[in-house]
C-alpha cells in the first residue's frame, strides 16, 4: 500500500525521515517561499540541488518520480514553451530587459532572442526546484506528521485532522470504487475501453451514487468513534506522530531559519537596497543597458498588430 500514490504511511529509515513533523513542514514552507519569491538562478539552483540531494538521500523508488517528472516536463515545459514562442517571443525583453535577436522568421512574426532563451531556462529551473522540493517533502513526510506539523505551525487542529482523515480514507474509497465499478460492469454498464468515451464518462458518473452512499454511512461511524474517544473536548491536542525534537531536528531547524533569513536579506538587497531594474537577473546583461518599457509597448502581439495596421 505504501507508495501507491507516492504517499508514505510509515516513516522510513533515513535521516530526513526521522526528523519530526514540524521540522519537515517548516523546512518545506521556507524552501517553497524562497522558490516562489525569487527569479534568480543564483538562489534557485542551490535550492534545487538541495531538494534533489534530499530526494537522493531517502533512497526512494525512482520509477514514479521519474515518470511524474517527465510527465510535467512534456506537458508543462515543452508545450508551454511552444505556446510562449507563438504568443510572446518578447518574454525575454519584458523580463530580462534587453533583446539580442538570434533568429527571425521571414515575416518577422516569430523570432528568438538570447534573453528569451534565458527566460525559459530560468522558468525551467524554478519549476524543477518546486517539483523537487514538493517531491522531497512528500517522500519524507507521513500524513500524520504533515497534520501534526501544520498544527504546530499554527493551523487549527480540526483542519489538520481533516487532512489526516482524508489520507486515511483515500485507499478505502479507491477500493470501494473498484468494487462498485466491477459490480456495475457485471450488470452490463459499459465502463471498459470498448465503449465510446462520452458514454463511458456518463456511466462513470452513475457510480458516484453508491460510492457516496457507502461513504456517508462511514462518516457517521467515524464521527461517533471520535466523539467516544473525547475528540474536540479541548482547545488544543497533542500528537503521537510528533516526536520530541532530537539533536538533528534542532540542527535542521537552525539551517531552515538561516535559509529563511538569507531569503529575506536577498529580497531586501535585490529589490530595495540595490534594485536590479528587470524582473530577471542575467549574467550577460549590463545593468545600464536595461530598457524601461511602457506597458503598451510590452506586449509583442500588440506591437506586431500595430505594425501591420500602419502598413
Amino acid at each position, binding site marked *: 500500500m505504501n507508495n501507491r500514490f507516492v504517499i508514505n504511511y510509515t516513516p522510513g529509515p533515513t535521516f530526513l525521515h526521522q526528523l519530526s513533523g514540524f521540522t519537515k513542514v517548516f523546512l518545506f514552507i521556507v524552501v517553497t517561499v524562497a522558490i516562489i519569491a525569487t527569479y534568480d538562478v543564483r538562489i534557485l539552483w542551490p535550492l534545487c540541488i538541495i531538494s534533489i540531494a534530499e530526494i537522493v538521500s531517502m533512497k526512494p523508488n525512482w520509477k514514479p518520480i521519474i515518470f511524474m517528472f517527465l510527465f510535467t516536463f512534456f506537458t508543462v515545459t515543452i508545450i508551454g514553451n511552444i505556446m510562449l514562442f507563438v504568443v510572446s517571443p518578447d518574454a525575454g525583453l519584458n523580463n530580462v530587459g534587453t533583446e539580442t535577436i538570434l533568429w527571425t522568421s521571414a515575416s518577422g512574426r516569430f523570432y528568438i532572442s538570447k534573453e528569451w532563451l534565458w527566460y525559459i531556462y530560468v522558468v525551467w529551473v524554478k519549476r524543477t526546484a518546486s517539483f523537487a522540493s514538493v517531491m522531497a517533502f512528500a517522500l519524507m513526510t507521513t500524513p500524520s506528521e504533515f497534520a501534526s506539523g501544520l498544527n504546530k505551525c499554527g493551523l487549527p487542529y480540526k483542519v489538520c485532522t481533516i487532512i489526516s482523515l482524508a489520507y486515511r480514507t483515500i485507499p478505502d474509497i479507491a477500493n470501494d470504487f473498484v468494487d462498485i465499478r466491477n459490480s456495475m460492469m457485471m*450488470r452490463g454498464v459499459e465502463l471498459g475501453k470498448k465503449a465510446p468515451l462520452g458514454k463511458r464518462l456518463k456511466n462513470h458518473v452513475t457510480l458516484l451514487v453508491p460510492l457516496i452512499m457507502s461513504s456517508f454511512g462511514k462518516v457517521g461511524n467515524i464521527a461517533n468513534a471520535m466523539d*467516544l474517544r473525547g475528540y474536540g473536548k479541548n482547545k488544543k491536542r497533542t500528537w503521537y506522530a510528533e516526536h520530541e525534537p532530537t539533536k538533528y531536528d534542532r540542527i535542521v531547524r537552525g539551517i531552515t531559519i538561516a535559509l529563511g533569513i538569507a531569503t529575506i536579506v536577498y529580497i531586501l538587497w535585490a529589490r530595495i537596497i540595490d534594485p536590479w531594474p528587470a524582473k530577471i537577473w542575467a549574467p550577460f546583461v549590463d545593468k545600464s543597458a536595461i530598457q524601461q518599457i511602457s506597458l503598451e509597448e510590452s506586449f509583442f502581439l500588440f506591437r506586431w498588430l500595430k505594425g501591420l495596421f500602419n502598413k
Partner: protein
Amino acid sequence: MEPIISFKNFGFKYKTQSSPTLFDINLDIYPGQKVLILGASGSGKSTLCNCINGLIPFSFEGEITGSLTVAGKETKKSSIFELSKDVGTVLQDSDAQFVGLSVGEDIAFAMENICMPRSEMAPLVMKNASLVGMQDFIDHVPFELSGGQKQKVAIAGVFANDVRVLIFDEPLAALDPQMGMTAVSLIDDLAKDDERTILIIEHRLEDVLYRPVDRIILMGGGRIVADMTPDDLLKSTLLKEHGIREPLYITAMKYAGCSLEGNRNLCSLEDLEFSPENENKLKTFFTSDYKPLPENQNEPIIEFDHVSFSYDGKQKVLSDIDFTIRKGERIAIIGKNGAGKSTAAKLLCGLIRPSEGEIRLGGKDIHPLTVKEIGERVSYVMQNPNQMLVKDIIKDEVGLALQIRGRSAEEIKNTTEKVLKACNLFKMRNWPVDAISYGQKKRVTVASMMALEPEILVLDEPTAGQDFRSYTDIMNFVNALNQEYGITILFITHDMHLAIENTERAIVFADGQLIAADRVCSVLANEQVIARASLKQTSLYRLALKLQLDPESTIERFISYEAELKGGEIDE
C-alpha cells in the same frame, strides 16, 4: 454494592421517530459483571448501549424519560466526554473506528485529545498494545491489518482512560470464525479484572457463549424481556420467540427428544453434564438410520480446470484450482480473508482472467466472452447492498440491467414485475430505495440480478449484518430460487450455520489453494481442513466427540433430519 449502571423507569424516543425505542427499562448492573445484551435487530439493544456511553442524547438527539446513572453520574446532565472517562466503547465497524494512520496513533487518539504529553503517551500506547497482543504491530498501517487486528486496536484505544465499563457493540460482526473465538477469549480475559464491567451486544449467542457470561439480558421491542442466567435462558422458549438462534447442540438435543432440565452447565458444551437418560437419547438419535442426502448428478455448469492466477506474473494468488460444480447445486465457498475465495469469484465473473488453465461455463471456455456477456449468466451479489444500488425507485433498480441492454419497455415491465413478485417485493415496487431496511436492500440487489435470468447466483457474505430473522428470510428466498428455477447458488461465507443448513457441498480455500471440495458434513468433520481454513469446529462436531461418535455421520444425520423437517414443512 452500588450498581455501576442503573436504569430507573428509563425510556427514550429518537427525535426523528414518532414512538419511543426504549420503554420501562429498569436494570442494575454491578461492577465486575460480564453481561450479554441479546436481541434481534430493532430490539433496542444498541440504543440501550448508546444511552450508557452518551452517544444518546449527545450525538443522537431525543427525549429521555426516567433516570440513568453511570458510575454515579446522571447521564443526561453529564457529557459524552465526561462519560468516556468511565465507559469505553468498541464499535461494530472496526474499520470505520480506526481513525489513526498507524496502530500506535490510533491507540493514542484518546490520549492526544486529553493533551497528554508525548513522553507519557508513548509508553502507555505500548502498554495498552501489549494488553491486546498488538505490541509488534505499532507502526503498521490500517490497510495491512485484518478485521480482528483492527478490533484489538480499537479495544486498546479505549483504555487511554482507565475505563470501568467496556461496551462491545456486535464484536463478532466482521470477523471470521477463528478470529471471533479469539475476540471472545480476549474479552473474557479483560473481564477477569474484578473492577471491570463488560457489556457485550450480540445476537450470535452460541459464539459469545464460547466463554461464560454472568447474565444475559434479552431485549425485544424496546423492552427487557428477560434478565437471567444463560442456563435458564437456554431452557426457556424465549430465544425462538425473539428471533435468536439457539446453539446447534441445543437444537440437536431437542431433535433427539432430550429434556433440557436436569443437565448441569447447559451453556457450555465442554462442561455440560448430560443426564444418563439424555445421553442415551442422543446416542440413539445419532446412530439411527437416516435417509442419505441425495447426490446431485446433473451436468456440470462451472468447471475450473487447473486454474492459476497472479497479478504480477510472479506470485500466484491462486494456484492449480480444479473443481466442478453441477447445475442446481448449492455450494459454500469457504476460507479466511485473503485465502483466494474472492479472487476465484472474480475469475468466474470474468473480471480477471486466469494466467493458466481454463474456466468453463456449461462446458464452454469463458475466455472469449466479455464481462457483460458473462454477467448475463453469472450474477454476483456484493456483500454491501449500498455499493450496488444506483437508482431511486426499486422498480427502476430491478429493471436497470435490462434497460442497459436496450430491451423494449414492454419487456422490461413484464420481466421486472415477474422478478419483483418472485422476490416478494411487488408491493414495494414504487418505494424509494432509501426508505427500506438493510435486509430489504439486500433482497432488491438479488432481484436486480435476477432480472437477467442468470444460471448462477454468487452471494458474497449474504448474512453479514443480518439478524437471525432476516437471515432466515433471505435464505428461504434464495433456496426458493434454487428449487423453483434450478439456479445454481454459490455462497461466499464464513458462516458455518449457513453452510450446514443451506448447502450441499463446500469448497474450501487456504493460502491460494483449494484444500477441500467435499460434502459439508465431511468438510466440517475434517480437523485439518478446519484448522487450515481458520474455521471453527461446530458444536455438533464437539458434541460428537463428547459422545464418542463419528463426527462425519453425526453431522450428516443432523443435516438429513433438518432436510426431512423442511420437506415436511413444504408438504404442509
